[in-house]
């Protein structure tokens, strides 16, 4: 406990962070250790190349998108707070949360998780997944084992299935609706972030 406290004291605004994200002190410390491990140059900030140093991430088909998600548009560095905030999306949702409409949606609720995933698709941030963006994702996931023609028809089919307002793109609502049967809480939670 002693080390936890001392580590916690090193982090500025840690109370606010815990409040906002719902992480326990133990989690924060663990994440801080990881942050420091990634931050090889000890600048207190992470850069894309620090993420790129994670080998396994390089093999991930959407690895670069994930890395990009950590950095707000225009920024080239991410500090610990933002790091934790992004990771807070993956905390398992709290079961017994009272539905208080006045409070903002907690960051690990189903909607927030979906929104995070949606933003990974929607690279140009226009609020819709266009056919081109979908094709990009499919291309990276299907690893060139499928012909371009098949990719196109898959993308067509996907959009056709989900697109309710016929604008040839998938909005967030449509995205959410198409995943209503999937247990997002299960799929998008990491166990140790409990």
């Amino acid at each position, binding site marked *: 406990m002693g080390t936890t406290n001392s580590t916690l004291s090193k982090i500025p605004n840690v109370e606010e962070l815990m409040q906002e994200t719902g992480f326990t002190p133990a989690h924060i410390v663990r994440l801080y250790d990881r942050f420091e491990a990634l931050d090889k140059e000890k600048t207190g900030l992470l850069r894309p190349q620090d993420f790129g140093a994670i080998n396994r991430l390089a093999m991930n088909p959407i690895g670069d998108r994930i890395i990009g998600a950590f950095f707000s548009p225009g920024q080239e560095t991410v500090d610990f707070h933002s790091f934790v905030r992004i*990771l807070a999306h*993956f905390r398992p949702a709290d079961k017994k949360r009272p539905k208080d409409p006045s409070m903002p949606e907690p960051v690990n609720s189903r909607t927030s998780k979906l929104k995070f995933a949606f933003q990974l698709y929607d690279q140009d941030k226009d609020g819709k997944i266009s056919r081109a963006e979908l094709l990009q994702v499919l291309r990276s996931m299907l690893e060139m084992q499928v012909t371009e023609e098949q990719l196109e*028809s898959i993308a067509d*089919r996907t959009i056709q299935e989900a697109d309710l307002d016929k604008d*040839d793109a998938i909005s967030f609502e449509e995205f959410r609706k198409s*995943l209503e049967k999937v247990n997002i809480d299960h799929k998008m939670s990491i166990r*140790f972030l409990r």
Partner: protein
Amino acid sequence: MSVRVALHSPSGSRSFLERGLLLLVILILLEGTVLTLGAASSPDIGAQDNTGGHDHRDDHRGIEGSRGNTNYTYTKKAFPVLSLDYHHIQVPFEISLWVLLASLMKLGFHLIPRLSSIVPESCLLIVVGLLVGGLIKLVGEEVPPVLDSKLFFLCLLPPIILDAGYFLPIRPFMENIGTILMFAVVGTLWNAFFVGGLLYAVCQIEGTYLSQVELLPCLLFGSIISAVDPVAVLAVFEEIHINELLHILVFGESLLNDAVTVVLYHLFEEYSGAGEVTPMDVVLGVICFLIVSLGGIAVGAIYGILAAFTSRFTSHTRVIEPLFVFVYSYMAYLSAEMFHLSGIMALIACGAVMRPYVEANISHKSHTTVKYFLKMWSSVSETLIFIFLGVATVAGPHSWNWTFVSVTVILCLVSRVIGVVGLTFIINKFRIVKLTTKDQFIVAYGGLRGAIAFSLGYLLDKDLFPTKTMFLTAIITEIFFTVFVQGMTIKPLVDLLAVKKKQEAKRSINEEIHTQFLDHLLTGIEDICGHYGHHHWKDKLNRFNKKYIKKCLIAGERYKEPQLIAFYHKMEFKQAIELVESGGGVKLPSAMPSQVSMQNIQPKKLPPAVAERALPQFTKGREEEIRKILRSNLQKTRQRLRSYNRHTLMADPFEDGWNDFLLKKQRMIELEKKMTEMSNYLTVPAAPPDSPTMCRARLASDPNAFYNIKASSDGVPTIQVDLASPQSPDSVNMLNEFSKRGATDQDLGQREGADRDEDQGLMMKPSSAGKEEKGEEEGGNKNPGLMRCLSDPGPSNEDEEDEPFLP
């Protein structure tokens, strides 16, 4: 539709006659069975029969000269034109008779529809067994102890377990492996000790006259009775269509508790003689448990890998491919049993390990064969087991003791409930998706006991366990209680509690893509966090699998895209089946192959699926293709195996017959793509490429029909095709145009002819033109796949309606 209706006039006299005839046949067979089976009064029928048989073969062998002499001393009677020699064929005859009885029973139950929906099949079969046993006793013969442990464990149980293991849905199983193991190991231990201990305590009470029952026999009894039985669980759960999670929990538990049961059984059996168990023995017991379970799995995995490796080389001898699957698995089971390891776990491991590789290697027909044989054997086995249970109940020496039996039944229930609730409380701390009270109730209520418990009890040595008959009686009572009471009431309870049922609808394309995306995302996040979680290990395993194992175990170039080609075929099958079942099939005249069998099969799933789906039905085929492409090619090889259900065989029966038809459809699809590029004569934006195909297919079968594709309620684009419109001749004309174009003129000419030949539906004419077209699509990969699908001519070529497509 009219023809179909005619064949299905259920209330008509015709089915009544059928039923009557069948019942009559059954009765006759019962009589015959009873008489012949009664005559065989020993389990070692084989041994006895050999001596019987020898009597008649003495003249050949010259054994027992006196006997032999009867053949040499001529009594000058007439040459026996016809003679009855029952003993000669007694054993196989009886076995066949039992199997036939079992199968007829199965048939019979389904003729009485209301009965099978109220009472689960297992109950009915036990009742039949009771009847048969009763009849045998009435006749005066001694009832054969048919549930002989050797027969049971070596012949009846393996097919069921192999079937379960081969088709085990790996993903849900692995996701819940922690929970399953907890229930299987800790739960069974708890049950065994609770029941055994309390029974001993009860026996010690004055007034029950049971004080001669020692502690160790009680514990042994507890361990026998506490194991959930996979056969019973399968039989009952199959019919209630419960959601995948619960199914896999209970079923997985029933499979994995075998190791615990084996260890406990042997432990207590060994030391019942000695009379006491020291702590050292307990430690040894724990070690034994680890060896038994891990050893069993290892043995199974080794045989599985051997089978996979063997299947790599079978491309020239396709006919015996299924044999490898069966023989290797059976040998895995026997090898495990030889070392007293857990045979069930070996079998499961073998089936699960070999499946992905074997399926990539063997031909389509072999795959079908394996599937059908496994289901057939396991079905027959299961039926036989329940019948034998009934017979054994009538036969076995019983010693009824009210106290013991009733206490057993109550204790089993109580311990199961306490065990499940307690364990769930602990497990829920580690699960993301918690188990609700409803889930717990179903898990507890679904803990059925079955024939394994009986067989284990039967194996007990009478000298060591003087109370063996009492045990057996109690075991049988418990089995009856769980199967009848719990088995019959679980279905209404599931409905009452509104437990989530199995999700019938397949996942949409969106779901597939997005869930894969999320998997990648989670893996990435886990890497960033430096956390070796669930996804990390799965990903690692998949990479290892792809990189090394698949290269070894899968033949040829297929390891790169093992399923894609075979998938195109499957997609075609489904498309064709939809086509036929949805309405095209009705109009198909007698020229169509296997028409009658098709019409007899009701498209159970299709109408509701059509109504539910928001999207046009005829794009289903394309959707299937996309689905499968995603499944096989998205980086993680996710095996979304549907949960095991014997009822899922419905759609497959016509696979083989549709070979050529489907390839033809494939051509049509390719053609359609080109056509939509050319012109949009279907006035719908972004129409799926194969929609005109289906239109034309329908057109070909009946141009006058008006097909209204179901409109969805939420406004997803639907494609209404009015085939009666003047567009139809245009579509044919398009074909004509195409026919002038490319290399496929020969093909088109034929198809055109086919289209005009309305009465003959879609003709299947072999043509090599399609091969080229397909080749353009898939590049070099088509050949191995197609050849694999078509290289297996099957045992005789005459069976095929049309010859294999390619020369």
